[in-house]
């Protein structure tokens, strides 16, 4: 039986302080917020990269994430290897993203604008979700935690589930990799240049349309990978994508559309805000992120790290 001393340390339960347990409790909750935050970072990084270069807000992002979750579930089910399943989700969504860009989105750049692109991605979202339901069913799948991650590990201050530690580490590695790609490789620099000034890249004689295809694929693959990572945490069910897309939108608005730093900072911030608000006043944990967004917009309409003129 667990000791019943530390009940007093819980907010709302009693007011006696019991410091070491307080630390353990709050650190664990901060980690819970970090898991959500890192996932949101991955999703909104994809959104923001796509927006930066293509100028498209991808409403299908959530449902493409869903493809990642289900592909990963299927591979995991068939092979038992979770790492393989993450790779499969990444590749599958990368390819799917590139196909979508090539076959649908590209026809909207010239004569159409944001309104129709928005609607188009809304339509793609419905279509993809419909296909996911067709293949995997409407009731959702039980996404088992990989066996190596299904217990907790002692992290000195507190114990925490191994798999969730893995999510944090894997997401962080991916974020660093994307950062290095954008800043240290020729292709990445080209993408960043395109974000600043599309026409200039065009003038350099570079095939912008292939660049678009690649960037949309990468953005979507980030979502797909996030989908695979969150599978064991949330399970696989058809509305998972929509559930995560809305807070991801908040992240990009708060962080500033098109800003890498903004997505990372705001993603972690929103994740923590949601979980830690839940700790103190659970009724507000959903609403708080939108209130926060409204406040940010009042004070700084372009978002924390948004650049003037990028979005207007």
């Amino acid at each position, binding site marked *: 039986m667990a000791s019943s001393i530390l009940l007093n340390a819980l907010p709302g339960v009693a007011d006696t302080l019991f410091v070491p347990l307080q630390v353990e409790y709050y650190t664990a909750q901060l980690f819970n917020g970090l898991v959500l935050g890192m996932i949101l970072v991955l999703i909104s990084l994809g959104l923001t990269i796509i927006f930066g270069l293509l100028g498209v807000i991808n409403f299908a992002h959530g449902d493409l994430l869903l493809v990642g979750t289900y592909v990963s579930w299927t591979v995991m089910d068939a092979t038992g290897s979770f790492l393989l399943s993450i790779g499969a989700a990444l590749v599958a969504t990368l390819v799917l993203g590139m196909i979508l860009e090539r076959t649908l989105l590209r026809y909207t750049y010239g004569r159409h604008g944001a309104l129709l692109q928005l609607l188009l991605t809304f339509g793609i979202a419905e*279509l993809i979700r419909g296909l996911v339901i067709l293949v995997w069913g409407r009731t959702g799948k039980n996404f088992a935690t990989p066996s190596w991650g299904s217990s907790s590990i002692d992290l000195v201050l507190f114990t925490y589930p191994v798999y969730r530690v893995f999510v944090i580490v894997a997401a962080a590695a991916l974020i660093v990799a994307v950062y290095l790609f954008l800043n240290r490789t020729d292709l990445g620099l080209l993408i960043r240049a395109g974000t600043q000034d599309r026409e200039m890249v065009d003038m350099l004689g570079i095939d912008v349309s292939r660049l678009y295809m690649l960037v949309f694929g990468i953005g979507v693959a980030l979502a797909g990978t996030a989908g695979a990572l969150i599978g064991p945490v949330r399970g696989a069910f058809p509305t998972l994508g929509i559930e995560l897309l809305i807070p991801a939108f908040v992240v990009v608005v708060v962080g500033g559309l098109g800003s890498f730093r903004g997505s990372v900072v705001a993603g972690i911030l929103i994740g923590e805000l949601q979980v830690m608000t839940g700790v103190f006043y659970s009724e507000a944990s959903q609403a708080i992120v939108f209130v926060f967004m409204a406040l940010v*917009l009042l004070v700084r309409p372009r978002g924390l790290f948004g650049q003037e003129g990028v979005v*207007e």
Partner: protein
Amino acid sequence: MIAAIATRVQSVYDRVGERNLSYLGVLALLAILPDLMGAFIASHIIVMAIFVMGYNIILGFGGELSFGHAAYFGLGAYGVILTLEHLVSSLYLAIPITVVAVTLLSVVFGYLSLRRRGIYFAMITLALAQLVYAIVFQMNELTGGSNGIAIPATEAPLGPLTPMSNELHFYALACALFLLSFVAIARIVNSPFGRVLKAIRESEERALHLGYDVNSYLWLAFAMSGALSALAGALYAVLFVFISPSLLFWQLSGEVVLMTIIGGVGTLTGPLVGAIVFIFFSNTLTSITEHWEIFFGAVIIGIVLLAPEGLIGLLRKAVLDDEKVFDLKRLIERLRP
């Protein structure tokens, strides 16, 4: 053959004039709808048409894409139920009270959202609507939360009509309100206010240079649009009796954009056409296939790629070769980041 018909149509069209012809068409549609689809679905269509009409003020005439109008529609529905439960016993008091309250909220949300334009505006309206959704979902003591809520059972007679219990009577009431809104919008569009809105839609910059307080105009348009959405939502609650928070979810915000586009952005008769096509299509779809999302998505994609000017625009282009089709391209250029 087709050419002959087209000429014929053209000559009728020339004589009667486009506006009168479309008004006649609206009246004829309203008259036959209940026979075609039954009173319940016909009523559903009219309710949605009022919603689309309201939405069209901000998108079609103001040129700003809101992705959060489910909030005003849903709050209209919740509002009328809560007002009936806690404040007044008459439905015909509850509806105006609700519309006023929701309009006030749309004034606040409009102020926040209109600090930005384009894609940012769309995302802010979306997030504010999700805030409303989260709050309604959470306040389950008042709203029933995920359980949803039912409108109190009252008779609510209106002269000889009992819209609460008789679907055809409800249809008559909804049609009256639809026509009222229709005439009101027609007048507004042709008023000085409407002309300034149009100017803003064509070029906000130019309107600014001409000395118009662009933000105030758009703000007013946003509030009017919120008011009509709330009215539609209130009617929806009367018609459906039971409502749940899904009414506030972003899916509905997307659907109203779609209905607006199907009917033709910035047209007077478009909303009715959009609502008819959409409701009929989605009812048919859900009854014949479990996988309606696939077809729904495919149709959206099809419309966007093939007929972005909507059905009315398509019709005009095909049959009447009308040069004055609302120029969506210009609107789109404005929205481009």
